[in-house]
């Protein structure tokens, strides 16, 4: 139990540092900025209490907001994906998986994992950039930021997963 909390705190700190120092400074084509903090929510195993995921998501978003002058935007978006995560994970988990199944690239398979992550990222970026723009007048730019940011963050998260899990154990079916 304690080791889980320590892992989560460490993961949170590392993700915040990476996000603030590295990813916040990426502005691909001037408008694509990945929000890799979403990885925090993606990692929760099945049957984690929903309240717990929500609170972790909220704290992640809040820390991100503190460092990037986006009061409330990150927190609202992260809480939203924390709400959706369990339902979506249930939908995409393999049939014979355990109750406390952890979503990783090795346990879910390559394509399922991508599907799982990109959905979370689209919701996260969608919520974040809509709150940021707060208007639909330049909807095309907002749409580009959302699409670009989601794809880029998914790629970064895949890269992180590959780094952590190693390339050997991946099944692509």
């Amino acid at each position: 139990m304690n080791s889980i909390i320590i892992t989560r705190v460490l993961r949170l700190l590392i993700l915040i540092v990476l996000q603030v120092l590295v990813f916040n400074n990426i502005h691909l084509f001037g408008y694509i900025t990945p929000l890799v903090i979403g990885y925090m929510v993606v990692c929760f195993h099945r049957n984690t209490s929903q309240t717990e995921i929500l609170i972790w998501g909220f704290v992640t978003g809040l820390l991100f907001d503190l460092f990037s002058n986006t009061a409330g935007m990150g927190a609202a978006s992260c809480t939203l994906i924390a709400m959706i995560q369990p339902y979506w994970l249930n939908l995409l988990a393999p049939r014979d998986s355990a109750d406390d199944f952890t979503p990783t690239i090795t346990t879910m398979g390559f394509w399922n994992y991508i599907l799982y992550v990109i959905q979370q990222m689209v919701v996260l970026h969608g919520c974040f950039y809509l709150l940021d723009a707060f208007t639909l007048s330049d909807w095309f730019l907002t749409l580009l930021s959302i699409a670009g940011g989601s794809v880029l963050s998914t790629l970064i998260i895949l890269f992180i997963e590959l780094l952590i899990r190693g390339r050997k154990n991946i099944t692509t079916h």
Partner: protein
Amino acid sequence: MRALIDLIVHNKHWFVFLLLEVISLVFLFSYNGYQKSVYFTTANDVVGSTYNVISGITSYLHLQEVNNELEATNEELRKEVYAMRQQLEAIQQDSTKRPQALPLRYEVLPAQVVNMTLHKATNFITINKGEADGIRPEMGVVCSRGVVGIVYMTSRHYSIVMPLLNVNSKISCRLRGSDYFGSLVWQRGYADIAYVTSVPRHAPVKKKAIVETNGYSDIFPPGLPIGVVQKIGDSPDGMSYFLRVKLFTNFPTLREVSVITNYHSSERRLLEEMAEDPARQDSVLNAQEKQKELEEKKNNLSPDTIR
């Protein structure tokens, strides 16, 4: 009752979700309220000092460019000193000749940028000087190339500047050499392009004309360069020009800025406060009434004297 409690316990994550979302949105909306949010932004001392350390490290990467800019500024200042000296000599020689107007006086306080966003709709810059150094909201911020923005809010040691690159920023400006003025606004997208609106159609506008501050707003002294006209277009209603302006300030590499700390403001504010003072208004009104009475008396008297 029991069923209700069961329902709440069973679905408690929905309530937690709603609660957290409401908290987030409260943060989001109270962010626009003025000093309330100082503690929740990069003006916060803990976050600010973290950024100070980070920018201390990254500043080395930009040293070359900063040096070039300083060199250019030095050169300009040297020229100016030379010109001024000549003027001074001319004035001293001829004692009957007087300077036509009082010279503009303003003092600047140098500061460093510690954090900045460029690619959102509402961008902000954090600088490492605050109330303790005499900075107050609504002071102007400039750099060696041109105008940067206006101080938005302050904490003890840090301030947040609303740069030109903010959809809410609106700065009064004019075209150099003419008295037609407009306002400079920004649209989300490019970090070096802004737009001048409401310049009347009959104003002579040319490409490459320089856009500068006009002294109306009391934040910037007149004549500070902002940018150069790149494209001349029409506003949607066709009543005025819509000019695309390339900004002089290079925001992505901005590091050294200066805050204009005492340009006229205190004197003007004092005057305006005095004007709003009801006691004073009463006394002025009384004086006006007395004046009227006197005039009426005079009017009544004057026909007699003529006769």
